[in-house]
């Protein structure tokens, strides 16, 4: 039993079909409970009710970064071991990641308007996220521009590797360029400068929910891609025969 067995599309389709309802159900339950619990948390003494945007903003931002990392891992697997499911998973993940980035940016703007008095500030974190969004756009555009699926997988894989280095570099370069308004991380295992537990438990639940939601969407989209490949192969065979 090894993870490489799932490189076989048939095996992947069978396993994903079996676990999909569970993951989707888990996502629905944890998001429902987490968001409602988050909505019922006490008002923050300074931020009032706007603090509740956090339950969407933080998980979306977290997933936006982690989805890119997942795409990087999937691209590496494709480039090194040429497993098709891996390349298709990277392709399927990109639009989800782009939407997560948009959610993080939009909820941040809605929170920033009453709190910082501005919709947008050229803060390092905000700027780095905007750049990450541009990388997502370029990656998606490259997938749709190349006709041959294997070439597309190769080219986007190389782009993902290079893009990861530069997204990381930009993240720290913008810090050099402008000092920030955005607060540092307060979700950590270190005691001290930490978010209050009244907020952290629903927040963790929302994070779990966003993660399961991503896995659900990823499985559905990867299955769609595999089916699209099969349809294309069948059509090509029919034209030949």
């Amino acid at each position, binding site marked *: 039993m090894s993870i490489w067995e799932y490189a076989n599309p048939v095996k992947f389709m069978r396993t994903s079909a079996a676990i999909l309802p569970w993951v989707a159900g888990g996502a629905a339950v944890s998001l429902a409970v987490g968001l409602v619990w988050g909505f019922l948390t006490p008002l923050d003494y300074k931020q009032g009710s706007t603090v509740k945007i956090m339950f969407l903003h933080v998980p979306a931002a977290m997933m936006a970064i982690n989805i890119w990392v997942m795409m990087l891992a999937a691209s590496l697997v494709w480039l090194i071991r040429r497993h098709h499911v891996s390349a298709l998973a990277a392709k399927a993940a990109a639009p989800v990641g782009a939407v997560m980035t948009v959610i993080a940016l939009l909820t941040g703007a809605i929170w920033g308007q009453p709190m910082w008095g501005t919709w947008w500030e050229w803060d390092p974190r905000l700027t780095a996220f905007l*750049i990450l969004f*541009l*990388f997502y*756009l*370029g990656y998606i*555009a*490259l997938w749709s*521009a*190349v006709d041959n699926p294997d*070439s597309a997988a*190769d*080219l986007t894989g*190389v*782009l993902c*590797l*290079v*893009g990861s280095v*530069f*997204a990381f*570099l*930009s993240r720290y*370069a*913008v810090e*050099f*360029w402008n000092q920030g308004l955005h607060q540092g991380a307060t979700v950590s295992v270190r005691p001290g400068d930490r978010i209050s537990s009244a907020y952290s438990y629903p927040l963790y639940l929302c994070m779990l929910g966003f993660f399961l939601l991503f896995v659900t969407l990823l499985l559905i989209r990867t299955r769609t891609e595999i089916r699209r490949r099969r349809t294309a192969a069948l059509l090509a065979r029919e034209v030949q025969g």
Partner: protein
Amino acid sequence: MIALLVRDLRLATRAGGGFGLGLAFFLIVCTLVPFGVGPEGGTLARIAPGILWVGALLACLLSLDRIFALDWEDGSLDLLATAPLPLEGAVAIKAAAHWVTTGLPLVLAAPVFGVLLHLPGAAQPWLLASLAIGTPALSMLGAFGAAITVGLRRGGLLLSLLVLPLYVPTLIFGAEAVRRGAAGGDGTTPLVFLAGITLAVLAAMPFAAAAALRVNLR
């Protein structure tokens, strides 16, 4: 390698090669900006470092698709790929040729454009140094983008979408060096970071670009 460099330079400088187009574009950008923001010297001096760097970057972008497109069309890229010279070396040489025909003229002409935009005299050496250090990275990153998009229809627009985010760190450190110089300060720190980026790009990018070219030549 030298023969390839000479060939590329000759092709670029002969008629139809587009040599000097980037420079003319740079001049137009520097002419249009005062129309947009008004002719006051103070405002212009304040935004000059950014305009000069963004202008240089766009002028560089303009000629990127020529790096491989012509050789792709007439098949000489296939010959290069099967030549004894490693494809990585060919890519590096082509980026170097692009830099000599686009980046170097920009570097040399930048002080003149700086005067046009009222850039303070103290910032001129910083502008020259940051462009001289940063433009090779622009050419090399551009060669990577051109290698990815070489076989595509509508490759030009996609090329800018792919390459411009990669230019962000270079732009930040380059413009920051000039800005610190214009404020009468010392721009060494961003300049050192810029040099680090350029060296890393020159060392690593030929491999990525050659990998992309091999996929497109398959």
